């Protein structure tokens, strides 16, 4: 067991190193950060001096080693644009993204479960057909189009909801500002959360429907019904419980995808999260922030995956055998 954990951690470290190399490889492709720091008319000599000062003239390998040295001490470099430590910038933006993902997940959960079950139980009903047809459209509309349509209808036309930003926030800790505790903040959350959930919602409805349909055919369901249990009890306790496992597995995987989709949603809604600053950093060639972002997100993913693997290994010895191969 100990060997397994060590090996798993060693793997995680390797992955992080690979991510950092990739980060540095794309760094030069993004552009020259100095151009964004100075006015257009500044002479080439001045720019050269500045890139020397920033250490951008060193060979990439030297820069990479220097970066690793800093990273080990928790220093991921300075963001050129924000003129502050990159890690600090990212950590401050993380709550906004997490809140958005959380809200979207809640919407997905609240909508997909009843709709999915309904569509499985009454596959021929008109409502089911409409819902399933609608979900096909939902899958095929890009998220930013959904977002712009929502803004147009609910913010501009009807004037019910705000069109951009996070609204009023409450400071929880030095780096966590939450919009979940104010009415204004919650209002601002509605449209971005719906947009973001629109990507995953159809997928989950279809998944729950398919799983549920399969379960409905199972012998134990027939038996439960024959026993005379109340229909909703049969459906939820005996049926839905057994569809949950694949849904949770897929949900876990999709959570990562959803964080990626926040980039688009956050840009359209000017939602000040990690995705938003990521895209802006690309545009400004704020390469140090970009690399820090890749490392940070990579680290979170690797950490979660490693923890999950280790826990699996502890719970289920079969995984250990797989890991030994």
């Amino acid at each position, binding site marked *: 067991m100990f060997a397994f954990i060590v090996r798993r951690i060693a793997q995680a470290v390797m992955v992080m190193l690979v991510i950092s190399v990739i980060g540095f490889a794309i760094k030069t*492709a*993004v*552009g*020259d950060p100095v*151009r*964004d*720091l*100075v*006015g*257009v*008319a*500044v*002479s*080439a000599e*001045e720019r050269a*001096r*500045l890139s020397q*000062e*920033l250490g951008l003239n060193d060979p990439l390998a030297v820069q990479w080693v220097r970066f690793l040295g800093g990273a080990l001490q928790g220093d991921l470099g*300075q963001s*050129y*644009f*924000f*003129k*502050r430590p990159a890690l600090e910038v990212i950590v401050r933006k993380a709550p906004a993204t997490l809140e958005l993902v959380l809200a979207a997940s809640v919407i997905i959960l609240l909508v997909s479960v009843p709709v999915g079950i309904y569509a499985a139980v009454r596959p021929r009903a008109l409502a089911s057909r409409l819902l399933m047809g609608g979900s096909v459209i939902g899958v095929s509309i890009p998220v930013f189009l959904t977002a*712009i349509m929502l*803004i*147009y209808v609910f*913010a*501009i036309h009807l*004037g019910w909801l*705000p*069109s*951009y*930003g996070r609204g009023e926030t409450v400071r929880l800790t030095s780096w966590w500002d939450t919009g979940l505790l104010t009415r204004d903040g919650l209002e601002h959350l509605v449209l971005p959360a719906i947009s973001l959930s629109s990507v995953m919602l159809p997928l989950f409805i279809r998944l729950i429907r398919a799983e549920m349909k399969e379960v409905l055919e199972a012998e134990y369901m027939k038996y439960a019904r024959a026993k005379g249990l109340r229909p909703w009890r049969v459906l939820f306790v005996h049926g839905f419980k057994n569809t949950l496992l694949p849904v949770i597995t897929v949900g876990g995987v999709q959570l990562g995808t959803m964080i990626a989709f926040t980039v688009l949603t956050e*840009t*359209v*809604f*000017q939602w*000040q999260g990690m995705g938003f*600053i990521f895209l*802006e950093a*690309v*545009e*400004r*060639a704020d390469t140090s922030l970009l690399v820090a972002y890749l490392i940070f997100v990579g680290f979170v993913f690797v950490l979660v995956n490693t923890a999950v693997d280790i826990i699996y290994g502890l719970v289920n010895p079969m995984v250990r055998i797989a890991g030994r191969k």
Partner: protein
Amino acid sequence: MKRLLLACLCAAMLCGFAGAAHAKTLKMALDADPTSLDPHVQLSGGMLQYSHICFDPLVRWAKDGSFEPRLAVSWEQIDPLTTRFRLREGVKFHSGNTFTAKDVVWTLERLKQSQDYKFLFELFGPAQAVDDLTVDIVTTKPYGLVLAMATYIFPMDSAFYSGVDDSGQPKDLIAKTGPSFALTNESGTGPFYVTYREHGVKTVFTRFKDYWDTKSPGNVSEIVLTPIKEEATRVAALLSGDVDFIAPVPPQDLERVGTHKDVQLVTMSGTRVITFQLNQKRRPEFADKRVRMAFEYAVNNAGIVDKIMKGFATVAAQQSPAGYAGHNPELAPRFDLDKAKALMKEAGYENGFTVTMIAPNNRYVNDEKIAQAVAGMLAKINVKVELKTMPKAQYWDEFDAQVADVQMIGWHADTEDSANFFEYLLMCPNKETGSGQYNSGNYCNAELDALVVAANAEFDPAKRAAMLQQAEKMAYDDAAFVNLHWQNNSWAGRKNHKNLEHILNVMDFPYFGDLTIE
């Protein structure tokens, strides 16, 4: 019970109205955020807009292109090298310090240290304080643009920025990547001071109670600035009422914004010219004036303005926009396909040739579409264009390396003067003097260079203008590059912004201190 409710409601409404009567908040969304609170750290439109909010220049541009006294009340040329400025009395900085001549001297010194500004002040020597309210600004050579440069002198509070901060750095340090004291603290003499700032998210400006300009009609007590880069989002924020003022308004939304019942749209012809340079060093064909001329005749710039810019640009046949000293009204846009074909034939390129072209895709309004349209137009004279577009973060290095035969560039003169266009875009490239830094066409005409240099040393505005106009004519006759248009400026505010048009100008430095909201 009902009556009680009604009374409460009335009271609440009254409070609401009463509150609204003193506090006027302007919520605005711009496409960019000031890079920092240090006005000297970067020379960009966003920073100059910020400088006009929190600082005040010695003089500023009036709408008609004349100079309006601000912190300087009057000025006179006392010898060819010296301009004497009398300063306003009783002006306070946000810190409470009193503004004097030594702040001007200090600020000019700092400008000369700033990487972004030093080239503008290259000809300036140290300023001298004659007394508390008189300052002499000296140039090392006679220079006709001293007043234009004075619009960039936003005096900073020298006492406030002196000494060292908590981390032991000098407070006046100009830090490109920070941290530094000046990046996050300001003390100017402007109508507003910063009370809250979250970089890239929100900046709040509060009206300065001791602001010297008591005659200003402005009644805005607070400005909340949110940078919104995404065009659709910015327009949506205005139309949904979440913000009161936006700039710029993207061309595709002009009609929607202009016809909205609560909103007023203000547009003005701008001063940023969009051009294509034809590299004569890379392509011998472009050294032939007839070929350059053929390109000029083949490009339907009026069509581009009409179709792609939705009329939201002014067709250009020269660099200097109307109102600039060098603007030559005689130069008319050229578009004549037959003539273009004839010129190509005459030059021996009837069957055309293939050229490479680069353009940015997120720097100028519709830049990518314009480049594609131009490529299509050149196809009609049998010139095949291999076009590559890229984000601005990558564009400028490619532009400098002159990787393509035809390169797009837009230019706005920092000096609000024609000579600046020539110095950067058309004069013979010269590493030592820095002239022709952005002349990727490698157009070189010694006669034109001499004319521009002479114009800069000329004091008589009429003579100087004549020289620059002649230089424009030379570039036009030579078809030095392909001219497209000047990008227009656009802003939109609520209908109750009474003097909105008055506070806006072609330089795009809104004077928010003077804005009145009903």
